[in-house]
């Protein structure tokens, strides 16, 4: 189930990337490229949350 959702999301994201290269550039180049900073912060936050979530799950499993 989770796998399916993940792959659908990846598919949608890559399709969007391929389809709207110019839209992507417009969003990231406008207003002094502030959206690049937002993207970077989101990557770090999501990455760390994902990692910690997985860690927590593993610890819980082992404790059982």
């Amino acid at each position, binding site marked *: 189930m989770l796998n399916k959702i993940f792959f659908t999301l990846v598919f949608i994201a890559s399709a969007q990337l391929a389809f709207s290269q110019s839209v992507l550039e417009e969003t990231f180049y406008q207003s002094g490229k502030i959206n690049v900073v937002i993207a970077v912060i989101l990557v770090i936050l999501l990455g760390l949350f994902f990692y910690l979530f997985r860690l*927590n799950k593993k610890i819980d499993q082992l404790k059982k």
Partner: protein
Amino acid sequence: MSCLLDCQTFCILTFGEINEMMKNWWKFLAVILLTYVTLFSLLTPLVPGGLAVNINEIKIGENNIEFTGYNTHFNTDQANLRCFISVGQQWIEGKVTTIESDAKFQFSVNLPDTLPSTQVAFYAYTPTDGAVYVSSAVGFSDIVIDSNTKLPDLKNKVSNEEHKRWGFPFQPILFETIRNLMFHVPMWFSMFFLMGISLVASFKVLSGKWEQDVIAVSSAKVGLVFCVLGLITGSIWARFTWGTWWTRDPQLNGAMIVFIVYAAYVLLRNSIEDENKRARLSAVFNVFAFILMILLLMVMPRMVDTSLHPGKSGNPAFSKYDLDSSLRAVFYPAVIGWAMLGYWIYTIQKKLETLKQASHVE
């Protein structure tokens, strides 16, 4: 009496809690530091700067130029707005024709048939913003370049002073992405810190304390997470400043090799069954990995001079930012805060590795 007892138990509880909190003081510090860093790195404005001019070629006689600024106050301060073209070390004043907004105005300037230099920059000056400029490469149609030409010397009249507003430096091409300095760069500092812990633990393993292997592997794993985050964020930043996700840059390729080497460390460990042997072998690998990391990320990029990456040879950009006090006030806390967060995650990872080992022994 019962009231007193209640009060006592309450006090004991809170003291216990306070004691617990005191032990974890650094976690609170990490949260405070990172909150400060996130707020200030996003809320500090950029100082005013020149963004663009709409001219590719200058000609003899009247030139009409549109100047676009960033965070400027052309309209608010229109009574004092002045504009100049600097040619070499000399100046020609222009005449403001229309002011569209705080960030945009048009001016016209009369150019003679000979100019002293090909180095042309466009300046706008208001007392609020100081002098902001755009230096773009322009072509010259029919204008003769003669270095002995004397233009009417306006140098003393042009106030080239810096703005008095507090903010992050305005850098061409980077613009707002200069804020990434507080997010992308500390990822690497945290990685170095965690790999350092790993190295110390590996030395201890080699001197006989093989139970320290848990520390070595958990800090290397968390360091690897920070390495991946550093690679991804760097790639995004590069895409919108250098124009490409990845480029053949010594710093970038070095970081990728470091990632592969440490990933190999984490993965290959699992192939050795005997715990004692695994600890010792991976400790040796880890020492070499650390040396490789120092060579690839600290030494090698400084020795070649074809690096786009700031802070390395051929590009003095980083030292320029580093000197700026507004960036330093946020950057140093950012490095410490992210490293502390890395250490925090490492303690959780260590818990998992200890549990894993215990379940293996059973």
